[in-house]
């Protein structure tokens, strides 16, 4: 049985590799610079670094969907907002 039914494409593979790399980076980061304990940030939430990655990724998904729904492709504007969102989440939340 081949894997043709999974219908892999390079862009979707890159997407999953990016997520895997992000999670792996979190591990490396925590190993060299420990500091993953929860902290109280904006919105009054106690978040660990992993929580912040989760909030960033889910938030970015909605940002891209919102951009796609409102302005369509290309998604550069959405990417800029998502990066700003990631910066905000890791810095303040």
């Amino acid at each position, binding site marked *: 049985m081949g894997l*043709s*039914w*999974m*219908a*892999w*494409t390079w*862009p*979707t593979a890159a*997407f*999953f590799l990016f997520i895997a790399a992000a999670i792996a980076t979190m591990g490396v980061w925590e190993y060299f610079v*420990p500091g993953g*304990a*929860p902290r109280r940030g904006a919105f*009054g*939430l*106690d978040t660990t670094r992993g929580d912040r990655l*989760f909030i960033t990724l*889910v938030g970015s*998904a*909605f940002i891209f*969907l919102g951009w*796609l*729904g409102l302005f*369509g*492709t290309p*998604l550069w504007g959405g990417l800029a907002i998502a990066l700003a969102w990631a910066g905000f989440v890791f810095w303040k939340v």
Partner: protein
Amino acid sequence: MNKTVNHKAWFLVLPVLVLVAFNAFIPLMTVVNYSVQETFGDNTFFWAGLIWFEDVLHSERFHAALVRQLTFTFTILAIEIPLGVVIALTMPKRGIWVPVCLVTMALPLLIPWNVVGAIWNIFALPEIGLLGQVLNGLGIDYNFTRQPGAAWFTLIAMDVWHWTSLVVLLAYAGLVSIPDAFYQAAKIDGASTWAIFRHIQLPKMKRVLTIAVLLRFMDSFNIYTEPFVLTGGGPGNSTTLLSIDLVKLALGQFDLGPAAAMSLIYFLIILALSWIFYTLMMRDEER
């Protein structure tokens, strides 16, 4: 906070990880792959980019199904959670009636979902069903096969009948875990029934109620079998919830690309709402 010392314990998680990989990650990855391609079968795929996502986001059919889904979910939550708590409060805490109540409560949960749909379909039929006959005999014009309002009423009644027990059992488990000392202290202070509920029982039930709300939210947002058997999404499209619409799109029309894009948006909504529910309900606990 101290760091965990024994990292070997992580290896015990491996079997679960492998299992989850096969039943969750691989199907999810496949759906992501399908969502950016078009296929006419035979495992031949053509790159389509983000066109299906744009289609779904602008689809009035999707918007309507989403509104129906949210209406359904928040209606049953608003009924099942308070009703479940009230029933749990009235259940006996000790004696012979405890097992009788618990088993009776558990019965609806044991019935297969398609059977629940079939039971309610027959029960509510206006010509032969007990509910349909009684309502029509009382002079209420009730026919869930052609009145959207009646279909919604039957759908919600069916879900409340099927799932309130789960909330009852969880809330009851929370209630019986409260030590008697709390009630004795409340009695000494002369607390009213409402004060006992508000300051002792409700806070003690918070964790189990969080689980109840999350389970009922996710389950009702995914609900498929019961409404499919009961109304088939009709009359018209009036009870076509998201999952029924998704199956029509994926298997009825074999539009795998749009169906995959819709599944991902559907998944993201459930993920985000579950996280928000969980965070809001656990936030006060941590303080």
